């Protein structure tokens, strides 16, 4: 099973070559850092002051994650997960894939794992982008010194892990929709509808029932109305487990695998 899974992952990894998904990861990861960097270069005085403050890294984290967790990250996930899953429908290759000597479990997991590896890539590149956005003004502009505060690796990693957990229901739902529906627009449309619903649900006490809400809830100011006694991370993991199981059951019980 392990070797078959590794082979399956390698095979799935090759399929994403030359697809828009790869570019989407890069664009999604660097969009906010590039924007932040541009603002910092346009306002060198403010940047000079920020770089001398202890809170620089907290500010950078907030500025980048604010838009990222609210909209950009969920949007990137909706798009690239749907793109990756739709490869087989688009190329009429499900029948080819299902006649390879792989169990349906291996096929299901291989694709899912590749999606998770790409999500990790997205997170890593995003954080590298934040780091670079903080340093570049000092390299380009002479009178701006390097940040005086040390980079809080542990704090950034902890926050990233929480955000990662919070985004798992989005991945699971998009994977289910992508496997289930041939029409790419169903997955994208469904994803956007759930994202909008989650943003609206931020004003509702029981907003935590919407599976796409946990990333926006990562920002403190979004937690005013939603019941604070409910752990968003546990909810996210619960949703992820249930939707993944449902997705797998629907996939293996499909009568026609072509």
């Amino acid at each position, binding site marked *: 099973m392990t070797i078959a899974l590794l*082979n*399956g992952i*390698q*095979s799935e990894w*090759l*399929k994403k*070559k*030359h*697809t828009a998904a790869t570019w989407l990861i890069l664009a999604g990861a660097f969009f906010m850092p590039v924007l932040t960097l541009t603002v910092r270069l346009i306002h060198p005085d403010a940047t000079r002051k920020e770089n001398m403050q202890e809170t620089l890294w907290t500010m950078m984290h907030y500025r980048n994650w604010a838009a990222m967790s609210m909209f950009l990250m969920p949007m990137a996930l909706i798009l690239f997960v749907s793109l990756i899953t739709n*490869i087989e429908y*688009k*190329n*009429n*290759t499900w*029948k*080819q894939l*299902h*006649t*390879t*000597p*792989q*169990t349906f479990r291996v096929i299901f997991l291989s694709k899912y794992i590749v999606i998770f590896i790409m999500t990790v890539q997205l997170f890593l590149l995003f954080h590298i982008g934040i780091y670079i956005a903080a340093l570049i003004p000092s390299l380009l502009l002479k009178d701006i010194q390097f940040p005086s505060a040390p980079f809080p690796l542990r704090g950034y990693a902890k926050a990233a892990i929480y955000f990662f957990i919070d985004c798992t229901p989005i991945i699971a739902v998009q994977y289910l929709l992508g496997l289930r529906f041939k029409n790419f627009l169903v997955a994208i449309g469904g994803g956007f509808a759930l994202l909008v619903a989650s943003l609206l649900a931020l004003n509702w006490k029981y907003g935590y029932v919407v599976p796409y809400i946990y990333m926006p809830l990562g920002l403190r100011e979004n937690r005013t109305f939603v019941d604070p006694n409910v752990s968003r991370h546990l909810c996210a993991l619960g949703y992820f487990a249930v939707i993944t199981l449902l997705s797998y059951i629907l996939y293996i019980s499909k*009568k*026609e*695998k*072509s």
Partner: protein
Amino acid sequence: MNCIETKDLWYRYTDGMPILKGIDLQVPAGAVYGFLGPNGAGKSTTLRLLLGLLKKQQGEICIFGQRLEENRISILQKTGSLIDSPSIYAHLSAMENLMVLQKVYGTPKHKMQEVLDLTGIGNTGKKKAGMFSLGMKQRLSVAIALLNAPSLLILDEPTNGLDPSGITEMRDLLRRLNQEQKITILISSHLLAEIEKVATHVGVIHQGSLMFQGTLDALMQMQEQTSAHVLETSDNARAAAMINDRGMVARIENSKIIMPVVPKDKIALVSALLTSNNIAVYSISIVKSDLETIFIDLTKNK
């Protein structure tokens, strides 16, 4: 020994209408089995069931002597397939398409170039498969089917989209694979002319039922049996009566006399008999019902 064997294979779609009605397919090992039938007869459904793409509802499927349900993976390890339209990743090159499957099959890397050369698309370089002509896509699909050095090839209408020279090349390739590498080939088509040039065995399916199954020779024999002598004379009624009086069988159809094929000396006797009785013989010919006619008869009459 049969490479593929199905017993009482039924398949119904959700509306309950049967697509397959108790198919007993027997594909001998080493054969090129032509699976013939008009569009919608149930060919593709049968092939999809054999490959596990459709969930079996009733009956039994054995491939390489193993039941498909319990041995799907080991059977697929030795099987190559091409179902319907080409199934390839349009954004990848031919080589990259093969690499995707090479990872799964674990075949040696040199095999990829081998199958590309074998199918005549070895020099497509980095060109994306989506830019290929339909014929090239079909060849790539065959290359993919051959990548794992299969013992069994299941091909659903593999010449679709190929030009006449492509069809000939494909036929030669299949013949070579069968003769040199001893690969059993199950090939479906709705064109008998295409199958009769390459198949050793034939199965004819119509409306979900198997109408004929046997060797191509048996089908040819059927052809012989349905051949006839056709005579055109100045007085068909009198001529037919005279032939019947001599103990031979003759009937009139479409203003012509039809009689079963008889030896040359007997036909000379008939000719002499008619002319000596002042009946002019305009023509005597043999009409062979081609396999196409037999195929149509089989699918029409039962």
